[in-house]
């Protein structure tokens, strides 16, 4: 693997891996709390947020996009809570209504607005643009990793996604005990004085940060898949939460790397001369891993819950 790999494959693979890990980590706890839909909801409502941010600012710069996406996530959470209370509808249904409606609204807005001169369309929202996040300045191959000029031209998404993944990993380690305790037994956690509501909100915010940071680079397909597939597969492989979280990181990494490689070279190996969507292939690989875990995992008794959560 030489210069070409570093230029064209290294950065998309790393970005995909960081995005997958950032989503899989909170996904572990969301699944155990039967809140896996929240990841789904957040990754959908990001679209109208980004479109509105674009309409207001006229750019697709990172900061307005992130603020728009974050704002939309906030609006969605408030709407879900309001519908649940006013309409007395169960949370899952309220979430389903809100995120599909907001996503649909985002699609309409996108269609009506003039986004032809920027890379912002429904396809991008779903599948991201992982293949375009290449590192052209890395002409010296691996030596470019030590070249400050080349490093300065890394795609912005790489440091952003790396920081998001590192932040979420650090939060997971720091709040491991309260997260585990309040996920396992909320009543007991409250009784010993843990701020259970704040922990739950923090988890949702961490999931939102992962979804928003990942969305731009890899699209909502990967985000949704990574919230659910690696943690659910990991749950079927072990009965220890710590091992489950480590395994989910492993499965997320495997999905990202294998998915990207398969998307780029798989069709060639089969004799076709085109490549397929990396985002689609990464999500598919994660689904295949979950399927294998369902069939062969040692703790697959809970398949129904994991798949339906």
């Amino acid at each position, binding site marked *: 693997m030489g210069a070409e790999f570093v230029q064209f494959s290294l950065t998309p693979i790393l970005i995909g891996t960081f995005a997958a890990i950032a989503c899989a980590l909170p996904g572990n706890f969301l699944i155990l709390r039967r809140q896996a839909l929240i990841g789904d909801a957040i990754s959908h409502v990001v679209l109208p947020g980004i479109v509105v941010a674009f309409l207001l600012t006229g750019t697709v710069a990172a900061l307005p996009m992130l603020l728009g996406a974050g704002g939309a996530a906030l609006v969605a959470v408030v709407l879900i809570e309001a519908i649940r209370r006013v309409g007395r509808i169960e949370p899952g249904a309220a979430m389903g209504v809100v995120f599909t409606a907001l996503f649909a609204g985002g699609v309409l807005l996108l269609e009506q607005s003039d986004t032809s001169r920027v890379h912002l369309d429904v396809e991008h929202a779903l599948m991201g643009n992982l293949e375009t996040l290449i590192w052209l300045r890395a002409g010296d191959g691996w030596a470019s990793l030590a070249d400050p000029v080349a490093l300065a031209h890394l795609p912005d998404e790489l440091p952003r996604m790396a920081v998001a993944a590192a932040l979420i990993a650090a939060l997971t380690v720091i709040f*491991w005990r309260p997260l585990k305790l309040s996920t396992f037994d909320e009543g007991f956690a409250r009784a010993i004085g843990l701020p259970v509501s704040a922990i739950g909100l923090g988890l949702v915010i961490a999931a939102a940060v992962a979804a928003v940071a990942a969305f731009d680079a890899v699209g909502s397909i990967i985000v949704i898949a990574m919230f659910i597939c690696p943690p659910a597969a990991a749950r079927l492989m072990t009965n220890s939460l710590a091992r489950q979280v480590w395994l989910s990181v492993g499965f997320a990494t495997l999905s990202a790397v294998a998915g990207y490689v398969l998307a780029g070279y798989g069709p060639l190996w089969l004799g076709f001369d085109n490549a397929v969507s990396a985002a689609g292939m990464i999500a598919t690989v994660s689904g295949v891993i979950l399927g294998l875990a369902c069939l062969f995992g040692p703790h697959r008794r809970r398949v129904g819950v994991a798949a339906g959560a």
Partner: protein
Amino acid sequence: MTAETLTLAATDGTATAAGLDPSSPLAVRGLTVSYGEKPALFSVDATFPAGAMSAIVGPNGAGKSTFLKAALGLIPAVSGEVRIFGAPLSAARDRIAYVPQRASIDWDFPTTVIDVVLMGRYRKLGLFRRVSRSERAAALEALDRVGMEAFADRQIGQLSGGQQQRVFLARALAQEAELYLLDEPFAGVDAATEKAIIDVLKSLKAQGKSVIAVHHDLSTVADYFDHVFFVNVRAMGEGPVDRAFTPGALAQTYGGRLAATHLDQLTLAGG
């Protein structure tokens, strides 16, 4: 909602908590809890004795569990005040051990028996302190007291209902508290577990600890408990079992829901 925000003030500005017995492990005044429009508990007063075993008794839906949860601040109260050994809840967390209903959690959670018991040491361990040998020993001893030491490394999903309940009790023992609050500890457990649990609770009492349990089996109230508190949305009476556990109190608490044949089978005060 914290206990402080619930504190009522009398018209002269002094906190009415002054009227609550500071020696009582759990004293409650004017506790009102509402789910939606209908109150689940309405202006409940109760004072539990220290160093005794107390039962909270009442029909289904009378607010027994709600009473415990509101006293612990797990659900918000509309009004009322709670004192634990005379102190507000926030200052007394280390003195309370709580055993929730077994059915309230998902037993397929990926964790082991010893891990669950170690959760009882959380307030001592905090975020980062390593689980030392002595912490682990304390957890194993708690498991030993409920006869579950051999199951320490077992996956919790593999336990029977009775074993689950014993693990919950072991976690409460690991908290080394002075007041033990249990929500239906005998619900759906086998006879051996019921015996094991009651033995542990009696040994706690012998050590001077206070035990308060939501209890649904009227036939064992007189055998197991010293003190009884009747509740059916409102407080329906309280006192030592040998004086307060009367047909009249039961009839008043349960309305028409207790058949006379049930009453015949009970060990009742003055009977």
